[in-house]
């Protein structure tokens, strides 16, 4: 890991280089939307010819600097619209920053919504291969993982049934099993720890623990301060697209809840 990054001349070497897995430098994301919403091309074309299109800009993130190290469990707190999901999209490289730089070392597997890519008509097994391909894995690679996925998801013979017949718990178990069995370097947990029954939640916690032990970096977004406090080593408080604070979860939660209750 160390040598890989050190040999990359474009990476600025400041401190604890080998440890960094995510770095955001002066990142700003501007959403630019027409000030009125055009639902049809006709409407747009008329306005465009009239020269009456104005754009509103919205700063989703502003001058964000953040460094996250290998093996860290990093919490993200903030109100709705504070830029939490924009931050996750940048790291999952779904969005490119308008300004600044995002640098990520490793495969990112988001658990944003479990099983979001499932096709209801396909069987669980077929969806495992489809989902794996979305994460960049070949059929052969997924074949090696399918036993582990089957075991963790506890689906048994249901794996051959179309996923439209699954309960939401089964759906979630399969999604969790796929995302975690593909062993990403960076795992994104976005409010997912409230699905499934208690036993399954305990299993998820155990698996997340084993991820931490194996040095996976984990990003946790939650409105439940208890989750952040229990899981994370550090946390960031985002406020209107700016980084308000980066500190231990206790301090961040304290400051954040104080602000909320004022």
């Amino acid at each position, binding site marked *: 890991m160390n040598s890989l990054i050190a040999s990359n001349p474009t990476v600025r070497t400041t401190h604890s280089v080998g440890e960094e897995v995510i770095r955001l430098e002066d990142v700003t994301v501007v959403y630019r939307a027409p000030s009125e919403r055009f639902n049809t091309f006709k409407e747009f074309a008329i306005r465009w010819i009239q020269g009456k299109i104005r754009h509103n800009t919205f700063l989703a993130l502003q001058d964000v600097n953040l460094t996250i190290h290998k093996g860290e469990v990093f919490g993200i707190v903030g109100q709705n619209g504070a830029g939490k999901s924009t931050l996750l999209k940048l790291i999952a*490289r779904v969005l490119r920053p308008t300004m600044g730089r995002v640098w990520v*070392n490793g495969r990112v597997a988001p658990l944003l919504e479990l099983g979001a890519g499932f096709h209801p008509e396909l069987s669980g097994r077929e969806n495992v291969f489809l989902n794996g391909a979305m994460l960049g894995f070949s*059929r052969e690679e997924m074949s090696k993982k399918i036993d582990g996925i089957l075991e963790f998801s506890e689906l048994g013979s249901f794996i051959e049934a179309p996923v439209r017949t699954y309960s939401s718990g089964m759906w979630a178990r399969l999604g969790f099993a796929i995302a975690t069995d593909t062993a990403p370097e960076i795992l994104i947990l976005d409010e997912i720890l409230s699905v499934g029954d208690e036993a399954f939640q305990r299993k998820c916690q155990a698996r997340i623990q084993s991820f931490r032990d194996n040095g996976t970096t984990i990003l946790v977004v939650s409105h439940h301060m208890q989750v952040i406090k229990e899981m994370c080593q550090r946390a960031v408080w985002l406020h209107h697209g700016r980084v308000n604070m980066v500190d231990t979860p206790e301090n961040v939660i304290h400051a954040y809840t104080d602000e909320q209750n004022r």
Partner: protein
Amino acid sequence: MILERKLGKSPLIYDSAERKNPALEELTQISRYRHLIFQLTRRDVLTRYKRSFLGIAWTMLNPLGMMIVLTIAFSSIFRFGEVESYPAYVLSGLLAWSFFSQTTTAAMINLVWGGGLLHRIYVPRTSFALAAIATGIVNIILSMVPLVAVMLITGVRITASILFFPVPILLLACFALGVGLLISTFAVYFPDVAEMYQIAVTGWMYLTPVIYPEEILPDQYSFLVTHLNPMYYLVKLFRIPLYYGRLPTFFELMPAIIVALVVLILGWIVFTRKSDEFAYRI
């Protein structure tokens, strides 16, 4: 983006500051994600008819049904007397046309409706269009079975030139991919483009000799409908090794190759230049 140059860089490093040519970068990504395109194609082929009784047979029965309707309507009402085996003529045209209209529409719909995925994980954005084209190729190859059957029944001579059929399909695929990427780009910004395209593509079909022979065109429009219409070359090229049972001439092949490649490159460049904005829009 992900680097795979042999400079000791990990292929898993993503750096938004490294910005290469998006059109070329997309090609690199597609080769990395080829399994995804295979899986998406498999999904489309499997699910299309999964819950229907006749299953995959619909792929073949659908154009046959259209052929029967059109044959009854046109050969008795309009009397295209000069067309040898009208059923084989119209079926070959319909297969080429429905390949084009279905794959371009699917490329657009997959991206706009399947776009939820684009918010969650990174996948090359052209995957959806490429999978739509690949699904279309599977379907049109399956449809060769009823076409050959109709040719045999109606007494069209089948020659060795039939082996040339992959070339027109490949060129049709290139053209459809280019058009599909262009309209997908528009459809991301304006959802009603999907509706408008359906009307446009229907109109375009009637302006192309698909269900009627090109000889019936009035002389003053003939040039417009044929030489300025890319689909004229492609539909005709598809028919030549099958219905006409010969190999195409140089002047039949070249315009099709040029138009297919130009549109493909144009669509690829426009789409990849805009695709970083898609997650903001869909």
